[in-house]
């Protein structure tokens, strides 16, 4: 057992070295001190990743993507810890990573605040931090080297642009996510920057199907003229379909639905012509994260923020695309 494994490890390390050399060759300036502080030459890159939890299908897909990309074959030694949505678990995990002296710490913070102390400790230990998906609000200077995640505001804008182009006269009802969450605030801002004057009403459905349904039931009465719903996630949109059908109207025709997320059920609704447009919020960015971590370890200049590429889908999507969806 141990022999093939160590052989594989060496092979992987060789591949890693190759990759580092190739990257070093590409970058003109950053290559100079790559060898000294990286420690990536002979070994795997040791990454401590603290995921905030498994609160949604999106998060689970994100976790799987990270695990699938930061493998030994790709030159990583991943220590993955699930914080189960508790900050204290996450702080403990981060401290463990410092004690283990990993090469890079990556984490998706549960909440924005309360990280000052632990981030200072990490900074003192000299381990670079990569923030994933969410961000922190801290008094520590330069608490992290880079951030990778989705641009919620851009997602809202993309949805707004589709509405501006395809339904310029639509009366829009906006189904908000949990009020105060980053996804709700930014998607609303992006959307309203583009077609804010078309929005005739808003209500929160807390990102859940059941509450999305209840909100749309009432909205059908309060705003009888509405003919397009912009929902901050697919789940609420699926609840909206229920309410619209119960009211004897046809979702996707009488009332168009524009959604953000792109989970499988949402795309299925798109194939079934009940959704009209879905902006993807892509959780599968493990490979981009891996690339970023390599650059950080090599001491290359990395952009302050890396926005994950989001696609968008309209009703031309096929059943095969939906079935291929991993989450």
């Amino acid at each position, binding site marked *: 057992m141990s022999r093939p494994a160590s052989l594989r490890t060496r092979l992987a390390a060789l591949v890693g070295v190759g990759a580092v050399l190739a990257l070093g060759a590409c970058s003109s300036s950053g290559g100079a001190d790559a060898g000294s502080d990286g420690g990536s030459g002979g070994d795997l890159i040791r990454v401590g990743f603290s995921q905030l939890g*498994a*609160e*949604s*299908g999106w998060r*689970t897909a994100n976790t799987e993507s990270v695990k699938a990309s930061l493998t030994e074959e790709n030159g990583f030694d991943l220590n993955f810890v699930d914080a189960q949505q508790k900050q204290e678990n996450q702080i403990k995990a981060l401290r463990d990573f410092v004690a283990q002296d990993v090469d890079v710490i990556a984490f998706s913070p549960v909440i924005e605040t309360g990280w000052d102390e632990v981030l200072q400790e990490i900074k003192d230990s000299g381990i670079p931090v990569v923030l994933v998906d969410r961000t922190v609000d801290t008094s520590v200077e330069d608490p992290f080297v880079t951030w990778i995640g989705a641009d919620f505001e851009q997602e809202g804008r993309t949805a707004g642009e589709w509405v501006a182009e395809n339904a310029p006269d639509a009366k829009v009802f906006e189904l*908000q996510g949990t*009020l105060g969450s980053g996804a709700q605030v930014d998607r609303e801002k992006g959307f309203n920057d583009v077609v804010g004057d078309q929005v005739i*009403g*808003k*209500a*929160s459905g*807390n*990102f*859940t*199907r*059941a509450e999305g*349904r*209840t*909100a749309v*039931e*009432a*909205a059908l*009465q*309060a705003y*009888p003229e509405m003919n397009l719903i912009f929902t901050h996630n697919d*789940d609420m949109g*699926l*609840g909206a379909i*229920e309410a619209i059908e*119960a*009211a*004897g109207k046809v979702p996707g025709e009488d009332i168009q639905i524009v959604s953000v997320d792109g989970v499988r*059920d949402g795309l299925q609704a798109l194939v079934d012509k009940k959704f009209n447009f879905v902006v993807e919020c892509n959780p599968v960015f493990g490979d981009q994260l891996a690339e970023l971590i390599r650059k950080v370890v090599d001491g290359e200049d990395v952009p302050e923020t890396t926005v994950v590429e989001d696609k968008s889908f309209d009703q031309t999507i096929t059943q095969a695309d939906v079935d291929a969806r991993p989450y």
Partner: protein
Amino acid sequence: MTTSATHSPGGRAGSLWREVTQHGLLWPSVALVVLLLACGVKSPGFLDVTLRDDHLYGQLVDLLRNSATPLLLALGMCLVIATGGIDLSVGAVMAMSLAVSLTYLDGAADPSSPVTVATALALGLGLGAVAGAFNGFMVAALGIQPFIATMILMVAGRGIAMLITEGQITTVTSPPFKSLGSGFVLGIPTPVVIAVAVFVLVTLAVRRTALGMFLESIGINREASRLAGVKARSTTWTVYVIAGLLAGLAGIVYGAPTMAADANNIGLLKELDAIMVVVLGGTRLDGGRFHLGGLVVGALLLSALERAVIIFELPSQTTPLFKAVVLIAVCVAASPYLRGRLRTPRPGARGAQRPVEVAA
């Protein structure tokens, strides 16, 4: 109801007035009617109920359907509260029951067959009853304070639900199961039929047998009732099982329309809604006398409040505030102090005037 009024200026009309103002349900009912009328004025058609595709359709019908879940939860909660206890775990039990039902359906060969659906239903209800039995054991057998005892499942239950669904949002397609939440029986939404049936059953059980009296006596003085021959322990245990069972049913009815077992969100904070419905219905939290009829009004008022926020086109940020304002108004109006003031109207001023209005 004993009234010790010193003045009775209006004769029969006066006693009627007294009875009306003294009734615990007056103010919640007034709030409900005012709210619905206000919605009707703001949004014409709100009060219309029409027949569409052989079933009732309209905002009021939606309102009834949305009230089914809080009513089911509150029925169990009310019995528990009558014994002087509380059950904080009902929201988490909702999530657990739905999770186990949908996970079973997900793994079944034919999720639409009646046997499979019945089994899924039985599993969900069974898990609810087991959770209730656990709570009852902690409270009745071990003597742990209900607040703490049920808080265990409130926290752990959601974790168990996550284990059942493996952290995913399990979704299945099973029309018969779905119809438990979104279907119709003789044109009436299924959840309403279920809630009414359960309400009638519970009412018969506690009012046509001595159970209700036992509950009240336990709530007023556990030790005294035990000495008087009431089986305090087993009765207490029973009400927690009932509460768990009803919470499981509520979870299934609530989650069935969307067929998604979202362990993180199903039933979140619903225990507080249930307590609120019980209190709105005129039952005091310190146990003893309880009013099942008030639960219906309380559940309707809760759903109407949530709906009215959208009808009035208020931003969702104000929902908690809006709820709070109405609740405060109802609670203040129904407070012992104000009721005392109404009971003994100032001579000549109001007592002589109002009865005419009531009688007219």
